[in-house]
């Protein structure tokens, strides 16, 4: 069992990591699970894991992708459990769980959000990490645990969908 709270240097480094990255990690998780409270719970869990595994972080420059990797794994674990519960619920009740209602269009920002939300969580995660948070393809592959080729293909297909959406939007 590792305990880092007793080591001042590690604590300071963790505090720095927490302050520097909490905003993007929470935003990333909010966009993945579409639920602010749940996203914050998952983000807390991710940072607790990061604190426990701080010794695994060899290169401070890789901290961002390392945190994204932990956050994505926490989200994926939650999604798997949720999917299993959902299957059980539907098997027992024969009804679908709540479908998130689509908000009315309100400008291009809302529409791009809708377009992004329509992508699968995996593709959305990959696009967010690459386009929004400036991670390279190999960093995204490492963080998401997907093969590099899959990451590239997700980004290509995802951006094509967004491109199509924007063209339609501009024509409208």
């Amino acid at each position, binding site marked *: 069992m590792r305990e880092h*709270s007793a080591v001042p240097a590690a604590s300071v480094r963790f505090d720095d990591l927490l302050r520097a990255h909490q905003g993007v990690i929470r935003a990333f998780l909010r*966009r993945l699970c579409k639920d602010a409270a749940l996203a914050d719970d998952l983000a*807390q869990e991710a940072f607790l894991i990061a*604190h426990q595994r701080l010794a695994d972080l060899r290169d401070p420059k890789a901290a961002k992708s390392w945190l994204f990797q932990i956050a994505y794994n926490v989200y994926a674990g939650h999604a798997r459990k949720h999917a299993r519960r959902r299957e059980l619920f539907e098997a027992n009740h024969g009804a679908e769980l709540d479908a998130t209602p689509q908000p009315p269009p309100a400008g291009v920002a809302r529409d*791009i959000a809708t377009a992004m939300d329509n992508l699968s969580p995996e593709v959305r995660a990959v696009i967010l990490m690459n386009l*929004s948070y400036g991670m390279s393809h190999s960093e995204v592959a490492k963080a998401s645990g997907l093969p590099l080729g899959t990451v590239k293909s997700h980004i290509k297909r995802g*951006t094509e969908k967004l491109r199509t959406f924007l063209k339609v939007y501009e024509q409208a």
Partner: protein
Amino acid sequence: MMMENDPMENEFKALLSDYAAPIPDDGFAQSVKTRIEKRARLRRFMIGGASLMGGIIAGAQIPKLVALIRPDAAAQNAEMASLTKSFLPTIPELSLVEISAGLSQGPLWMTIALGVTALSLLWWMSQSALDAL
């Protein structure tokens, strides 16, 4: 890199900048640190508890081990056993004294197996408690 010199790349990034904008702290970092401190305290408590329990189980076996090595010290061991029993709290119906007395009559492997099971149970309980924090 894909989409280099793509005029739409900047547009995508600009549009997504709102969508993926970092969220202000609003006490989030402090709540994470509080949870970490709580976990550390509970962990220390659990380790202390497990050590104490392991110590009691191991201590209860000392007279028996000594008797195995030095059969002539049986009388002294009996005194030590009674001393150990006098320190243990008496719980109605199923006391630790009764449990240790029962264990000392049984084979050594059973005592060890029970000790390992108890420690595993304690470990599992501590992990569950940590997850709940």
